[in-house]
């Protein structure tokens, strides 16, 4: 048993104890699924950061940056921040006004359609499951690499921890542990990058050294190292296009992805939504940028690592004092667990509140007005969460070949399936339930089939024909056609009016004044990001290359 293993066990035990105490305050389904709709700015902002930041960031994005794509990745990270702000104002507030528990329930309410609710619930569960499997695999790899314990045991240990948090404490526990984990991995990253820089010869000196070496200079240029983004991305125009397309995909994640937008259903007020989105916009960008920069610096001491996805693990174990390495690795572990709890609790909520509820009503219509179903709803949700964890571990252990088909769906699903319908649900007077249903189905199925077809045909499409864009276009076309041949019903008009009407409780003058003040300050988020880029990347890089 090494020190990293001990550190991870201590952190996981701490989160288990915290969630046990939080679980004692869960009284009903609203507490369990939407934290009693009473969460303050700190918890919402913390959860927005923690839900996004997972093993994907510390192993995936870090590896891409290490290989030489910091510039293009920075472009899409900024779109993620912009999406976060846009999503809060134009979707998050409306989502909260709907007084629903899940986003599928919101779609069902907005379009007055059980079919729409069922379709979006199924899509949501599939999407969350894909991400959960990916995070579980990342957690297992991280823990087994660091501790030397068998991969399967690590998978089970991590799954047991995040399942305990989700199942016992529900969303309340997830929000609290997410926020603590966000604090832990932010702190550990900032400390960690300092030690990595020290070992590589100093932060600014390492940038200057990498930039002035012809072999490594390209990894710091805004276009990145040629070929690192795929063989279709070669020219400057290709890189701009790549940044634009994947920027839209990431922007969609920040804007309307269930693991981001669902936090707004838990917020105490719309003021909380607006303030936390600004914190998240800056935080998401800054954490992403510094994690990628930390990985990039490692090129100075260990270029051409065989498995770049382990660059942060290697740096933690080789470039810093043991205790600091433990802090950084437990921070990365926390980031993975926090994302897993979010995905898992969303799966539980959608299965219980949407899928099973709709099936029950279909089979027993006389029970549709049934009251006091909280205990049953929570029980079904818990069973679904445990089932999701078991399936995720089983798939990670067996790693079946068929898995690659579902993993194809990946990040493009949010942009192709959810984004056009989510935006139309707020902005469009003309979109109907039929249009929304056709749009979501076409976006989901279109992107999936297209991706499978291009894979089997052995053809890598150019960036402008990426499955996310194809799915989005199909979504909009199907939504437009479906809406053109049907009429908006009175219930749909009433639902739209409801989500566009600000509740009286939001108009308290003191709150309004404070929120507008924060949002005025928020207008300078872009300037803050510009300053970060200038100081920590561009000035030392441009000095070194003589620009």
């Amino acid at each position: 048993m090494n020190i990293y293993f001990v550190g991870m066990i201590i952190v996981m035990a701490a989160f288990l104890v915290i969630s046990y105490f939080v679980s004692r305050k869960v009284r009903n389904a609203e507490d369990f699924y939407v934290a009693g709709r009473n969460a303050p700015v700190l918890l919402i902002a913390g959860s927005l950061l923690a839900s996004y930041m997972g093993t994907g960031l510390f192993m995936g994005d870090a590896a891409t940056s290490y290989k030489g794509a910091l510039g293009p990745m920075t472009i899409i990270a900024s779109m993620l921040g912009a999406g976060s702000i846009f999503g809060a104002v134009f979707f998050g507030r409306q989502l909260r006004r709907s007084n629903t528990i899940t986003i599928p329930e919101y779609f069902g309410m907005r379009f007055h359609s059980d079919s729409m609710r069922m379709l979006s619930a199924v899509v949501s569960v599939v999407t969350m499951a894909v991400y959960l499997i990916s995070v579980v695999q990342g957690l297992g790899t991280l823990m087994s690499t660091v501790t030397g314990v068998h991969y399967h045991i690590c998978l089970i240990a991590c799954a047991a921890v995040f399942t305990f948090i989700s199942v016992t404490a529900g969303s309340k526990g997830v929000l609290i542990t997410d926020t603590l984990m966000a604090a832990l991995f932010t702190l550990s990253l900032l400390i960690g990058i300092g030690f990595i820089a020290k070992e590589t010869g100093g932060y600014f000196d390492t940038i200057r050294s990498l930039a002035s070496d012809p072999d490594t200079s390209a990894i710091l240029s805004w276009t990145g190292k040629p070929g690192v983004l795929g063989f279709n991305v070669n020219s400057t125009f290709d890189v701009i296009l790549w940044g634009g397309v994947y920027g839209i995909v990431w922007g969609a994640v920040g804007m309307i992805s269930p693991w981001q937008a669902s936090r707004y259903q838990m917020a105490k007020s719309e003021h909380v939504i607006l303030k936390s989105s600004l914190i998240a916009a800056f935080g998401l960008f800054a954490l992403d940028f510094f994690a990628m920069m930390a990985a990039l610096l490692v090129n100075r001491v260990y270029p051409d690592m065989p498995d770049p996805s382990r660059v942060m693990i290697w740096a933690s174990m080789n470039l810093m004092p043991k205790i600091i390495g433990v802090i950084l690795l437990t921070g990365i572990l926390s980031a993975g667990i926090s994302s897993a709890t979010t995905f898992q609790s969303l799966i539980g909520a959608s299965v219980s509140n949407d899928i099973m509820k709709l099936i029950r009503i279909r089979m027993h219509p006389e029970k549709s007005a049934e009251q006091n179903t909280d205990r049953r709803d929570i029980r079904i949700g818990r069973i679904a969460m445990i089932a999701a964890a078991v399936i995720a571990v089983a798939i990670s252990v067996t790693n079946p070949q068929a898995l690659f088909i579902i993993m194809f769906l990946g990040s493009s699903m949010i942009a192709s399936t959810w984004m056009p319908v989510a935006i139309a649900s707020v902005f469009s007077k003309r979109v109907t339930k039929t249009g929304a249903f056709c749009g979501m189905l076409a976006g989901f199925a279109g992107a999936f089939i297209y991706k499978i077809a291009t894979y089997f045909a052995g053809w890598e499409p150019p960036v402008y024909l990426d499955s996310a864009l194809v799915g989005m276009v199909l979504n909009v076309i199907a939504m437009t056609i479906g809406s053109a041949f049907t009429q908006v019903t009175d219930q749909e008009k009433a639902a739209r009016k409801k989500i566009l009407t600000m509740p009286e409780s939001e108009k308290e003058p003191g709150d309004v004044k404070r929120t507008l003040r924060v949002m005025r300050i928020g207008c300078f988020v872009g300037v803050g990001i510009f300053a970060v880029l200038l100081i920590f990347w561009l000035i030392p890089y441009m000095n070194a290359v003589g620009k």
Partner: protein
Amino acid sequence: MEILIAAAVCAWITFFAVWAYLKVKKDYRNDSSSVSVTKKGKDTVR
């Protein structure tokens, strides 16, 4: 070129932040009877 990209990044985030601020301010002005927003952009509470 790097500076231009950084400036573009700054510009589009600022664009969304300003758009969000103006939208929220307009919403409060339209919906609230207790808050008025002056032409100079200062928020005054009655």
